[in-house]
Structures are given as structure tokens and as C-alpha cells.
């Protein structure tokens, strides 16, 4: 029996309505318990205690991320990690190697990270890399927005069959949530085209992105999956695209029956562009946050820009081609048969660029104008808007107007004149930060064991060396950044894995996936699937499946669907 008592910390546990009270947290065998009998003591007096960080959207592993690593040796040589007696070596600033990714998240107090996209055909690759990503519990979202089977089921309005297919593909790929990227657009990209808006039909398939989003949202609810559909909207990264984002959110309004979210709009900064072209480009954060403030069926994550040299990578092949044309930088594209596309372009966000600086402001405006932190989560869409290692910096921007003003003074003058960011006084509290960086994300993911410190939760805990009673944090953004950069302690399953920002113990996390127990009455699609499978793919059905032994510590979440 391993017991630990975290004593005297200022505990932030918003799910249990604990807001900075001095409390003890008892841990036994990796779980939080009521009481311990003879525990070791971890003195957290004068420090902040929070649940371990949760990341709902981060490209950390898989085929596309690895192509990014391959593409950018110049990104690696400037940021290296030496081998130590407990850790493996690694490299990479914007796209670190797998071991390094795990260690860096852990040093900041993060304990659960969801990989944002995997092509089902390459799911084994994703899982092999997840196995080599230590310190974290993790999962991955299969890309389903341009999948031929789904397009065909939805076109024929066969929702039960579609639900059975999604249940199957979650098992087949060991996936966690339904991910849509530029729904329909990636099929069009197979012939070098795209869809213009959510009512532009997909070539050869006679279905619109609207029908895909609505259909998958419906199926997602039928299956009772823990997370909502996770949507990267059409027209991402184009001026005026906030209209598309609004329409995407509006099109599932009717499905929000019980007041719970039904759609997660990811990296919404990239979907909140106003204006007609790059010259008239402006922030549409106002329009988006106003909608979100008045509706409860959506959650967002930020995709906050960092001024740095990073690597953009998404499944949105046509968008990456636009970036290639804009920058003239090196460009990788990889379309995956029957399923999806992807692209990679290195990108440098510059303070003095009007567009980049405006994008920076859009992210923060969204975070500050959306009143409820339970609806908008902190991410950088790592590494698209910047590496995840910049989270402490963003936390400082959110908590301190002073920190924001310091940046506003240095950005492009044109962007400065047009942003309303300098008029916003709001500063996040530590409790808000806990919600936006972990608690809200865990709830949106449906991970009941994460994101809180109540009895029964996994003992994933982050302890930061800041004293909210003695320090004036907004006046001292440097302190915030420093404290969140190097956690005083990170506890993974009740074990101390980080002390003073250094890894003291390497552990392997779990791989979460969704195991939908289809009922006997449900539709049997597998025989039909096997029949057409070889027409659609160049691999055999049997070889497509990811067996459970591909996951080092498999942790299936068993779901009973509503159908």
C-alpha cells in the first residue's frame, strides 16, 4: 500500500468547489482517498495544488508529426535534451521527439494529453509512438470527416449503420473521439480541390459539410461517446471564415437537447478571422465569443499564437497548401487513401507582421471575452500556433494585464490600432486557470477520473510554487510563468515524478480508447465492411486492425450506447 499525504497546500479544485483553501489531499495506491493511515508526507505549504494538467488538443505523435520531425533537423539541433540516469535523450523545439514530449509536459505539471489527429490507416504508428511517450495518460482521435464509409452512410441517411461503423472504428484504431477536419474538404483535396463553405457539396459524393457535421454529431450522441465531436471547421485560416465557424456551430443547435455540449470547435483562433482579404483582415473574436456566451452546446479551445518559429501541421491539406503558397517555405503533403489528407509547413509568427499580431490578439480576445472558462480551453494547437512549452507564458497573459500590455507595446502598429485587447481589463484567477487548463478539458473529454481532486480520482496532481495569499500575481507575470514552467512537484498516479522541474522518476502512462459495447439488436456491419474493404484500401481488413497489445497500458473506456 503506497500512501502519500499532500499537506497544507492551497487547493484549487473547481469541480468540487474548492477555491484556494488550505487542505490536505490523501492518496493511496494512485487514487485520491478520504483518509490515509500511515502516509509519507509531502509538504505543500505556501504552494498551489491543482489536478494534473489536461490537454484536449495537441499534435504529439503519429505519421504527420513524425514527418514534421523528419522535415526539420534545424528545429532539433537548437533544442536538445541529454540522457540522464532516469530519462532518455531527445531533441526538438516545436516538434520534440517522443520521450522529450512526455518529460516536458510532465515538468509543467501536465499528466493527460490527447493527440489531436490520427489517420485510421496509420493508427498503429500513432500507438507505437504513444507507447514511447512517457509520463502521460493519452489517447488519440481518428480522422473521420472525409472517410468514404461515413460519407456514404450519411448520404444514405443510414445513421444506425454509421453509428455501428464508428463503434467499430474506435475499436479498430483504439481511438478516443470523432475528429472532423475540414469536413468533406479533404476528399475534394484528393483531386486538388476544396469545399468553399459548409453547403458546398463534396465532389463525387453528393453530400455537404453541413450534413457531415450534423450526421456525425447525431451519431456521436447515439453512441454516447465521452467526448463531443471534435471539429476543425472548413475554411480554416482564411479571412472572413468566422462566418463558417458560426454556421458550423449553429448547424447542430437543434441537437443540444439536455444542455450539454455537442460540439467542440478546436483551435478557434484560426476560425475567428474577419475581413474580406489579408488587407482588410480583422479579429472576429467578438462575434464568436458573443455566440458562445449565449449558447451552451459548444466548447472551444484556443490555438493561441506564440511569436516564434514553429511547424504547422494539420490534416487540412488544402490549408497547408495555401500556407506553402504564402510562405514559399518547404512543404509536405500526405493524403491517406479513403480517409484524409495532411500537410506540414514550417512557419514563423512575427510580432511585426500585421496578420500574425492580429492572430495573437484574436486568441486572447476569445479567451477573455468568453465569460465562462468552462467553455474555452487553453491550447496552442501544438505545434501549429506554437509549442506546448509556451503554456506558462499564455497563463501569464491570461492572468496579468501587465503581461499583455508588455507584448501589445511591441507588436505591429497596424495590429495594435485595430485590436481591442488593450481595452480588456479581465484577468483570470487561479481557479479560472485550473478550469481552462485542466478541469474543463477533462470534463469535456468525459474523463471522470481526471481534472479533480475528489475521492476516487486518479492522483495526478500538479503543485506550483506560488503563494496566492502573499503574492500579487497579476503584478508579477514573470513569477506566474516561472512557476508553471517548472512544477514544484508533479504526481502521476500518486507517485512523485517531477521535483523542482526535474524528472525524478520515469513512468509509462495509459492509453485511453473507447470501447462501445454494441447491443445485440444493433446492426451488424462487419461482414459488409469486410466485403468492400479491399475495394477501398490497399491493405487487408485483418492487417488494418490495431490489436490491444499495440497499447502498452491499454485502458478501454466501456460505453453503453443509447441506441
Amino acid at each position: 500500500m503506497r500512501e502519500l499525504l499532500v499537506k497544507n497546500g492551497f487547493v484549487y479544485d473547481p469541480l468540487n468547489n474548492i477555491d484556494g483553501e488550505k487542505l490536505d489531499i490523501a492518496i493511496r495506491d494512485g487514487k485520491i482517498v478520504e483518509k490515509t493511515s500511515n502516509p509519507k508526507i509531502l509538504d505543500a505549504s505556501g504552494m498551489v495544488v491543482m489536478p494534473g494538467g489536461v490537454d484536449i488538443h495537441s499534435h504529439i505523435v503519429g505519421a504527420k508529426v513524425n514527418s514534421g520531425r523528419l522535415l526539420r533537423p534545424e528545429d532539433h539541433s537548437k533544442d536538445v535534451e541529454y540522457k540522464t540516469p532516469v530519462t532518455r535523450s531527445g531533441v526538438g523545439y516545436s516538434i520534440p521527439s517522443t520521450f522529450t514530449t512526455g518529460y516536458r509536459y510532465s515538468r509543467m505539471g501536465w499528466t493527460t494529453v490527447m493527440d489531436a489527429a490520427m489517420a485510421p490507416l496509420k493508427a498503429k504508428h500513432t500507438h507505437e509512438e504513444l507507447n514511447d511517450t512517457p509520463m502521460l495518460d493519452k489517447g488519440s482521435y481518428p480522422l473521420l470527416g472525409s472517410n468514404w464509409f461515413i460519407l456514404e452512410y450519411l448520404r444514405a441517411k443510414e445513421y444506425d449503420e454509421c453509428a455501428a461503423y464508428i463503434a467499430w472504428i474506435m475499436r479498430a484504431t483504439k481511438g478516443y473521439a470523432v475528429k472532423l477536419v475540414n469536413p468533406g474538404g479533404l476528399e475534394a483535396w484528393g483531386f486538388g480541390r476544396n469545399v468553399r463553405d459548409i453547403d458546398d457539396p463534396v465532389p463525387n459524393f453528393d453530400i455537404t459539410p453541413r450534413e457531415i457535421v450534423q450526421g456525425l454529431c447525431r451519431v456521436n450522441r447515439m453512441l454516447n461517446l465521452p467526448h463531443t465531436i471534435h471539429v476543425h471547421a472548413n475554411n480554416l485560416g482564411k479571412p472572413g471564415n468566422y462566418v463558417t465557424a458560426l454556421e458550423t456551430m449553429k448547424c447542430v443547435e437543434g441537437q443540444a437537447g439536455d444542455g450539454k455540449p455537442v460540439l467542440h470547435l478546436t483551435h478557434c483562433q484560426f476560425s475567428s478571422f474577419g475581413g474580406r482579404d489579408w488587407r482588410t483582415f480583422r479579429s472576429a473574436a467578438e462575434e464568436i465569443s458573443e455566440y458562445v456566451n449565449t449558447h451552451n452546446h459548444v466548447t472551444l479551445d484556443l490555438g493561441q499564437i506564440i511569436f516564434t518559429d514553429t511547424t504547422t501541421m494539420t490534416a487540412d491539406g488544402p490549408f497547408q497548401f495555401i500556407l506553402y503558397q504564402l510562405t514559399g517555405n518547404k512543404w509536405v503533403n500526405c493524403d491517406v487513401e479513403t480517409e484524409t489528407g495532411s500537410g506540414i509547413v514550417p512557419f514563423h509568427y512575427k510580432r511585426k507582421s500585421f496578420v500574425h499580431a492580429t492572430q495573437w490578439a484574436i486568441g486572447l480576445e476569445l479567451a477573455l471575452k468568453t465569460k465562462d472558462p468552462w467553455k474555452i480551453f487553453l491550447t496552442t494547437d501544438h505545434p501549429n500556433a506554437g509549442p506546448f512549452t509556451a503554456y506558462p507564458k499564455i497563463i501569464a497573459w491570461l492572468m496579468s494585464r501587465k503581461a499583455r500590455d508588455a507584448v501589445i507595446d511591441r507588436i505591429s502598429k497596424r495590429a495594435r490600432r485595430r485590436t481591442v485587447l488593450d481595452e480588456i481589463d479581465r484577468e483570470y484567477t487561479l481557479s479560472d486557470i485550473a478550469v481552462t487548463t485542466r478541469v474543463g478539458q477533462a470534463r469535456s473529454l468525459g474523463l471522470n477520473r481526471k481534472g479533480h481532486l475528489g475521492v476516487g480520482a486518479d492522483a495526478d496532481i500538479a503543485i506550483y510554487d506560488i503563494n496566492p495569499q502573499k503574492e500579487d500575481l497579476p503584478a508579477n507575470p514573470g513569477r506566474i510563468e516561472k512557476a508553471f514552467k517548472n512544477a514544484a512537484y508533479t504526481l502521476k498516479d500518486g507517485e512523485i515524478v517531477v521535483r523542482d522541474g526535474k524528472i525524478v522518476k520515469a513512468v509509462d502512462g495509459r492509453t485511453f480508447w473507447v470501447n462501445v459495447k454494441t447491443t445485440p439488436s444493433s446492426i451488424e456491419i462487419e461482414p459488409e465492411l469486410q466485403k468492400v474493404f479491399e475495394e477501398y484500401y490497399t491493405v487487408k481488413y485483418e492487417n488494418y486492425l490495431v490489436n490491444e497489445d499495440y497499447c502498452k497500458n491499454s485502458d478501454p473506456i466501456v460505453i453503453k450506447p443509447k441506441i
Partner: protein
Amino acid sequence: MSIVKNVACPVCGTLCDDLEITVDGNRVIGTKNTCAVSEAKLLNFSDPGHRNLKPLIRRDGEMVEVSWDEAIKRSAQILAEAHYPILYGWSCTNCEAIRMGIALAEEIGGVIDNTSTVCHGPSILSIQDVGIPTCTLGQIRHRADLIVYWASDPYSAHPRHVERYTAFSDGRFQHSEWESYVARLRGVLGKKRLSRASELTLMKDIPLPAVTGEKLPPSFRTGKRKLIVVDVRKTRSAEHADLFLQVEPNKDFELLQALRLLVKDEELEVNEIAGLPVHLLEEVADALIGCSFGAFFFGVGLTMSSGKTRNIDAAIALTQDLNYRTKFVIMPMRGHFNVAGANVVSTWQTGYPFAVDFSEGYPRYNPGETSVVDILSRGESDAGLIVASDPVSNFPREAARNLIKQPLIAIDPVASPTTVMADVVLPSTFVGIETEGTAYRMDRVPLPMKKLVEPPETCLSDEEILRRILKEVRHLKEVRGET
């Protein structure tokens, strides 16, 4: 007797996964869906004449049989004592073994490099220069109406590539063109016969049609699949092509750049480029632009001929240019069945695809400096571990000579010049026949390799051997108080 279905083939980068293998009494006795190369391997791998069956150590110049424990200890000793050891091979084993190999290289501060250093290394360097627009092979099967093999002869090197993924495959939007190819082959054969007959009877030469035509054949006016082969000689693949372009040796770069200019509507003020008339190239450029989905495949003929990386830069840049006009992709024809996997695993663990140097305590990459051929040519390393490869017979002479001068460990299921010259030989199993695991196809689609028969009792998998060496190395370092 049992039949194992859906077997992935442990030979080339095409990694066909539809093999049906008949196994009887722990022997492979029949194969289905295999090419000749694959069949030869699957039926003959267990030939005892060339199989390594016992661990061997060189003592006083003689190889003697020893126990596994002793052989592992000796290997660990060699590696732990070395200052700058090299670990090379990796493209004919599974990803699990490669992971173990990287952990070992890191532990001993050595250099780990895979065979792409001598085949598609230039392609990788080129991707790092300019990127690459590519796709998985199924995308080509479903959509491509123009297929170009450049300096690559799939009929000999990747025998089922054309049938499974390109010109002869059947997809959703494009269909197999094998019937028209058969007709064309018959035509060519008939002309050859006629020519020979006239030679014999009329004592008169009826000239065969020119190797390269003056204009595009009629099939280019249809929306059907077209196959172009570009090579320095008329290969078997070229005989099946709609159009064969015979490029002068070492002139690929000129030809690619000329096509880039033509694709950008520039005018060429010469009559001939790389031995090909410009007016034909203009038509080819039009065909490249006019297709709805085009695919380039290139082989070692482009990566290892004059220009190397620059050839690939030009080929990828041409593909990128074409994407402004239509959809075009490009893909290297990878050789060994898991050479792509060696790059993939190395990249996710170390950030770099090959030539990774751990001597500073973190991964460092500088091909030319940290690539094994160059290290050996300069004589810098002081021990070697070779897994599933035969550098002694295919490295440059100077490199091979330096390799055998130093203590050398070879992990291989079969005897090769490398195992003959080695100081320790560790008999391993065949991945994909006797050992399961993961391998990556040339388009980096991961596929599970199957275990068909039990390996000889005295052989261990590459992964297990490496695990034992790593454990022993750690033990040795602990004894010496180095950790």
C-alpha cells in the same frame, strides 16, 4: 497442413500483405500471391546450408561455437569498451528491434545508422530541403491517371507494385489498364518477329520502331491511366509503358529542370535536352499538367547517379510546381521491406531518420559526418554491430576494410561476407517468417508481420538479442561504477 492468409511479405518496400502461405510441419511448402523474389525467400529461407544456427566467437582466428550467455557477454564487452561504436543495418528487421537498437546506441554513446544511408539518403536530405507532396499508395490506385516511374524498374525490383498500386490496379475513379498493355505487348512482339523473319528471308532490315517516339501515343488523348517510364536503358518496365523516355546517363537533373521550365510555360531555346527532343518534352509537360492526378515514383537510379540530392530536389520541386496546376504526388521506391520503418522509428525517438550520433549524450545528426560510411572511411569508429545487413560486401572498399579491422558483431539469420568477417556471430530469426512485429511500407503505412513457423531453438529474435546485450552493457557499466 495449414494456410496462413493476409501475410505481409518480408522482401521489398511494396510490402504486399495479401500472401497466402501453406505451412506443413513447421515448413513453408506453398505460396500464393507472391512474386518470384518473395517465393524464393519464403520457400528457401530455412536452407540449412547457409543458416547461422549457433552463436560463434572468434578465438585465435577461428570461429568457435559458444553458449548464448558467453556470446552476449563478449558482445556487451566489445560495445561497452568502445569509444565510438557504430550500429548499422536495421532495414530487414522489425520496429521493435530498431527501438531496442536505439536504446543500445544511446547507452553506449555510439552511432546508429540504417541502410538508407546508401540508398534513399539523398531523398531524405532533399525532403529536409524542400519537403515532399506525397500520399499513400491507395490514393494512387483510386485516382492516378498519369504514372511516371523515373530511374526505377518496378518489374524487376518491386514486382507487384504496378499490379497492386498503379497502372494495373483497379480503383474507385480509375481502372486497370492491363488489357491495353497486353495488346501493346503483343504488337511489339509481332513487330520483333516480323523484323527477324525479314532479316532471315529477305536479307533486308525492317527497322524496329524507335525506342523513344517523336510524339505522344494516342492513349494520352484519353482520360485513362497512362504510364511513362524514364530511364537510361529500356528496362522491362519500359516495355510496358505508354511512353518511354530514354534519358542520357547522368542527365536526369537537366531533364527535370527542363520540365520545370516547360511546366511554367517557359521556352527552351535548344532542340534537345538529355538526348530528348524538346518538342516531345513540351508535349510531356502538357500531359503532366493535363492529368487530374499524377504520381512520380523514383528509384536509386536518381538518388545515386550524378547530382544525387540535387536530382531529388528537382524532382520534388517539379511535383510542387505541378500542384499549382493539378494534383501531383511523388514517392521514393524504398527497397527493403522495413527500411521506411527504420527511418520512422529513428525519427520519433531521436528526431532524425538516420546517421544519429549519441556520443555527446544527445542525438546529433550531420550526414557526411555522422553517417556510417563516412565514419568508416575516415577510420574513426572502434567497434561495430551489424543487424540484418551485409556492409562488408556492399560498402565502399575503404569503409569495408576499416569495418573488419575493428571488433565486429553480426546479428544475422544467414551467413554473409559480413558474418564471415565478424568476431561475434549471433544467429537470429527471420522477421515476417519466424518472428512477428511491425514494418512500414514505402508510403509509411504500418503493417503487422506474421510468424509462420517456429524458429530453430538455438536462434533468438533480433529484439531479444539486443535486449540481452543492452542488459549486459548496463550491468557492465554498473560494475565499473559508470552510471
